[in-house]
């Protein structure tokens, strides 16, 4: 199991487009991905789940990946957040 804390860095937060990008990316891996915010916990491969986090700019999220390719999964997702999903 790999865990990672990340911060939402794009100003608009996790709106429809970044959510779609995140889910598409996560779905390419075999490992499961759970995303936690405060006390909500959602499936990182579910667009509705990720949308419902309502993660604004500056929110802190915890990624938890579990499976054969968990490290790669976490790395790529982290890069997405770092690159601000290509926004700003």
């Amino acid at each position: 199991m790999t865990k990672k804390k990340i911060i939402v860095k794009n100003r608009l937060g996790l709106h429809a487009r970044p959510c779609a990008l995140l889910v598409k990316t996560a779905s390419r891996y075999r490992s499961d991905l759970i995303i936690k915010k405060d006390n909500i916990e959602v499936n990182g491969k579910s667009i509705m789940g990720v949308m419902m986090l309502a993660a604004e700019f500056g929110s802190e999220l915890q990624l938890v990946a579990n499976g054969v390719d968990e490290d790669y999964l976490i790395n790529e997702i982290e890069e997405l957040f770092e690159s601000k999903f290509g926004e700003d």
Partner: protein
Amino acid sequence: MKTIKGIPVSEGIAIGRDIVYRKEKIKVKKKKINPDQVKAEIERFNQAISKELKEIQDIIDNYLHNEKEKELISSYILILKDPLLEEKVIKMINESNYTAQYALKLYLQEITESFAKMTNKYLSERFSEYEDVIARVIDHLNGNDNHSEDEVFNNNKEGDYIYVLDDISPSQVAKHYQGIAKGFCLAKGSKTSHTAIISRALGLPVVVGLENLFNEIQTGDELLLNGHTGEVVINYDKATLKKYRSILEEESRQNAELEKTINIPARTADGKKIPLYCNIEIEQEVDTVIRKKADGIGLFRTEYLFIDRDDLPQEEEQFQVYRNIAEKMKDKPVIIRTYDLGGDKIAGTTKHKQENNPFLGCRGIRLSLKKPQIFKTQIKALLRANIHGNIMVMFPMISSPDEVSESIKIIEICKEELKQNKTEHNPNIKIGAMIEIPAAVFCIAELAKMCDFFSIGTNDLVQYTLAADRINKDVERYYNPYHPAILKMINITVANAHRFNRPVSICGEIASDPDFIPLLLGSDIDSLSLNPASVLAVKKKILDTRYDEAKETVRKNMKNNAFKKQD
């Protein structure tokens, strides 16, 4: 008889009987299945999802051509393939023995509630699209493979109708327009929606943004739909019908007449050449500009790249749009105006700040200077696209030379940054200012030292000079472009700009008003910029006008302080 007004997005006139179709709130009865049907019900659910996936793929493959549109629609696929959706619906079928429809409805309710609780409007905005996708799956489960909207079209195959709808998808327009639809009146929609773009390509008149239309129109009403003005006349009387019929006849007669002038350059009867440029709002309009053989783009309003979306257009996206336009126009000038918007319209900027007087507020160049990052992205995209054609940049809402010099500084920074990153661009770009604030009229000489050209935006100039809101019906009579103050300002601008050899164009609505053309020609305007649809009509007027006579008319008008149109 009653007339309502919306936003015209696709030109033309339609006369006909209407069909009103209002999408019902999804109605699904609470129903249970026998426990032995569970497996079959899950199978039915999976099939409905597959069917919808196939339809979405069909729209992506056959109706959309732009990557951005495809990306938008492909997020529907994620909604349909959402593991959460599958898990919750199957659980409800399994444990509570609900029908798949009912399980979907409960799922939709659950997420509606959590979206409603979100405090950040921005993140919850897109929800209605999700609702539509799920509703379409419920349609399949109800045996409505054609979806309830399609049924409206299929049940009314005979005759021509004007459809009155909440909204319609581009694929439905493309599928159904032939033979049965004469036009659309929509409650939602915008000029940049895919539906509007496809309708224009097909030549179907469409008016959108008719918010109140379901209270105003009933099925079977006789409608006149004016895709030029946005007017919809409900249960018209004979006189109005006659008027519209004659507009239609006149249009086709005139079009035939005007087409004859298409290859002649615009010049006055006594030989003064007046280049005709076009005002455009979206990339696709360039095709019309080329078809009408206009001399260039006099005003590309870039704000349409910024509105109706929840993110900002990135440099690459903007670059592609500007490049496409510049390439299509070859060497002809393409004047691109930096975004002229208030902060409330741009994603991610201060939405909470409600301005008391938005027209006197932080919009146009003022917002750009306040948000230099957004401005720089646009400038860089322009400089890069400038390799591919003859691009010029123009600033809106200039009130003093300071805004121009600050903007030029930013342009220089952009050039430097592009150079350092070794990004290909053309730094030689002409700079112009919109003259639309009365103060700018009186500092043309100072502006001329920094600007290469001017364009008078008469819509705002009239509004600001006469202190009359253009869209407030109660002050309509005060919004008078024929007020002598306006003609004087145009003349002051031109005279001073010409002292510095700077050309002046007009890009407001009066540039397409045939009665105003002689006044503009007589004021020594160098060119006109107008909507593509009016090019040939204005050209005809110019061909019929003598420059020397126009000068005399202007002289008389100024002397008499004439407030009205001259006969």
